[in-house]
């Protein structure tokens, strides 16, 4: 039987209350949102805390998808299912729907949250790759105020983030630019599993030429990885199979996969190449379908 080590359970009634508790209890405390990453780790005794602060009552305060002219802001307590079912996200960032359909399973998606996924900082985690691909930034609040960090700065390493002991991830912000679309491709061993490799792509077109493009990979290094070299290789060119192949080759070369039970390093490099091509191809096809003049 798997049971976590003993801890004191506290329930936060507001963001300020949660931060106050964290400030008082220090590193012996941890927030729990959906709990579908943290509780399994606690059951395996890979993570042990004296205090667990339940923030599920903050869903009213932090469960939102807010659309503004130049960005979409998503509250940290927004659940996977809400991200999957959001029409505005499906229209603006179809990468969310692609990824959410293959994250765990529908029952787990009823509980898991955006903020929890990012704070878990698992290098194989799909939403982290989505946020990396979309160039998201994270709003973090502590007793001393708020700060915004990019995804590159948010993830410090496996299971490590920029969120301090007395701080909390509040929302994730996604810049919105016209004539763009996005896609996510994942290979998994069975439904609901972690990725063998995943690739996300976001592309923006201007008069038939790629004005910007981003690719993010999961499960091929210590963090979900954005690949600036691909952005440089794609900018200023018209989309083509040859261009996607060049991007795929860069992905295969620059990622840092490790051989494990999910596959060999060589196989994962092959997947990084192929999935990068597919994600770029699908992103461009979506732009053309939505916006033939782009």
């Amino acid at each position, binding site marked *: 039987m798997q049971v976590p080590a003993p801890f004191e359970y506290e329930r936060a009634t507001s963001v300020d209350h949660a931060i106050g508790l964290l400030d008082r209890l220090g590193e012996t405390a941890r927030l729990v949102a959906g709990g579908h990453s943290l509780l*399994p780790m606690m059951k395996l005794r890979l993570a042990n805390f004296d205090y*667990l602060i339940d923030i599920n009552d903050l869903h009213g305060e932090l469960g939102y998808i807010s659309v503004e002219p130049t960005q979409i802001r998503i509250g940290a307590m927004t659940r996977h299912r809400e991200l999957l079912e959001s029409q505005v996200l499906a229209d603006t960032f179809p990468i969310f729907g692609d990824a959410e359909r293959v994250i765990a399973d529908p*029952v787990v998606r*009823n509980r898991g949250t955006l903020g929890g996924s990012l704070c878990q900082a698992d290098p194989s985690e799909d939403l982290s790759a989505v946020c990396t691909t979309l160039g998201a930034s994270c709003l973090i609040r502590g007793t001393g105020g708020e700060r915004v960090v990019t995804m590159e700065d948010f993830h410090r390493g496996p299971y490590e983030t920029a969120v301090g002991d007395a701080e909390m991830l509040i929302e994730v912000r996604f810049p919105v630019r016209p004539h763009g679309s996005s896609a996510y491709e994942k290979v998994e061993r069975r439904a609901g599993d972690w990725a063998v490799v995943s690739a996300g792509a976001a592309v923006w077109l201007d008069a038939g030429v790629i004005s910007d493009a981003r690719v993010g990979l999961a499960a091929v290094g210590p963090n979900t990885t954005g690949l600036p070299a691909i952005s440089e290789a794609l900018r200023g060119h018209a989309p083509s199979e040859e261009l996607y192949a060049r991007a795929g080759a860069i992905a295969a070369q620059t990622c840092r996969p490790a051989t494990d039970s999910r596959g060999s390093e060589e196989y994962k490099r092959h997947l990084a190449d192929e999935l990068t091509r597919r994600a770029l191809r699908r992103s461009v096809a979506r732009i053309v379908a939505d916006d033939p003049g782009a």
Partner: protein
Amino acid sequence: MTVNDAEVTREIEGRLLLVHFLRDHLGLTGTHWGCDTSNCGTCVVWMDGEPVKSCTVLAAMAGGHEVRTVEGLEQDGQLDPVQQGFMQCHGLQCGFCTPGMLMTARALLDRNPNPTEQEIREAISGQICRCTGYATIVRSVQWAAAEEAGTRTTIPAEGA
């Protein structure tokens, strides 16, 4: 919390999981305890009307919420249509996954009264039938959907 509409209050340890609270403290052993790793889905119950894996929810987290278990499916002595469907279409063999399957199927039909086979398979994709009897589980859910719609004529054909 309320469990199957009955108010329940207990002093518990923070680390107690909902599945053990239901089984060991309340004696509601209809909810099964399986893989312990949120993979198999036999522990699925509803929290505020949504299916959750009760091996990955602390009992304390369910405090103040409405929990429904497989024991709460039957209403006024009448089996729920999904329970009837599982009987009619051989939706259970060993029965271990059945409580979770029933709870997920009921929640699916409440949101989508006429699901396609693909939608049924997706809804139960987080649950494992160790007898591998998925075809008959899908057929059982289709039986229940047709029963509720008043369109049931026969047991759905083979190959569903």
